[in-house]
């Protein structure tokens, strides 16, 4: 007997993500899912971001890694709530992990929740975490063709943050080409250029976040 179906493979994940999205909407929380390859600067960008906030800001971070709580320790220095999600092998965060790690947090007046995904340009793409927006961080040492090599990741992103622009004099990287490649896979993508080392572009990044609050 053949039964036709249209069941989403990740419908359990999508169901949890939908409840998270509703919770963030109700609480007025802007939730941002940060995706990049390892070493592109997600944690550095968050350090710069948290470092610029005053203590009254209601912001929290869930940071995912396969092993270690190094990132959570780096980010906890700023005094905002930070929790490490150690996936123990999984190469991405899923909605259930986010839900589990929010447990016990008074998140009803949270303005911003950053979800720092596991460093990986492939697997996190498929998993909705209930976020309002998705940002891909790409550093200029990685090559301009990444949007074409990982179209799914860039296609699902609202924002591309080009990081490490202070290194542009030393690496053959064309800003024009990477912008063109990203817009080919996602014509509506917004693009920011930053350096977490010099601080260049961080004002625009903060403005971008502020626009979503």
């Amino acid at each position, binding site marked *: *007997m*053949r*039964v*036709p*179906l*249209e*069941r*989403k*493979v*990740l*419908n*359990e*994940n999508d169901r949890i993500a939908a409840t998270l999205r509703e919770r963030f909407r109700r609480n007025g929380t802007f939730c941002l899912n940060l995706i990049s390859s390892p070493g592109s600067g997600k944690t550095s960008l968050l350090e710069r971001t948290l470092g610029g906030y005053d203590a009254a800001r209601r912001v929290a971070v869930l940071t995912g890694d396969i092993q270690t709580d190094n990132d959570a320790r780096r980010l906890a220095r700023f005094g905002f709530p930070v929790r490490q999600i150690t996936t123990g092998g*999984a190469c*991405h965060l*899923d909605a259930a992990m986010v839900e589990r790690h929010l447990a016990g947090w008074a998140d009803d007046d949270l303005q911003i929740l950053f979800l720092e995904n596991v460093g990986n340009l*492939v*697997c996190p*793409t*498929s998993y909705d975490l209930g976020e309002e927006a998705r940002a891909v961080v790409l550093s200029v040492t990685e090559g301009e063709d990444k*949007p*074409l090599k990982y*179209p*799914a*990741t860039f*296609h*699902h992103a609202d924002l591309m943050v080009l990081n490490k622009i202070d290194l542009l004099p030393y690496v053959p990287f064309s800003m024009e080409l990477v912008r063109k*490649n990203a*817009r*080919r*896979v996602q*014509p509506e993508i917004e693009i920011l250029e930053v350096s977490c080392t010099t601080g260049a572009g961080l004002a625009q990044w903060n403005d971008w976040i502020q626009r979503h609050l």
Partner: protein
Amino acid sequence: MSIAASVLDALRAESALHGGARITRAGLRIGELSGVAVDSLRFCLEMLVADTDLAALAFEIECAPWTRRCRACNTVFRVSDARPECAACGSGDTEQAGGDQMELSFLELEEP
């Protein structure tokens, strides 16, 4: 691998909906933009079902192309080489149409 595990969870849930009937064949539709490599998925599925009650299960995986719809001429076209321009009229005003599916498309159940 976790996507393959989700596939098997979904299959078991569907089997339960059909009175626990044994599934002999399952169809999957995987979009080009889903971020899933069909060969890897197949490999993981076969590894996960080996030596289980689903060991005899055959998978039929269909790859759904990445498509966009042209807002000017309404053509739905297959995106090649990541170019967003309409393949029919060349307009750059196009929107996402398909290619991010990751779904079960059919099951074949053993007759009770």
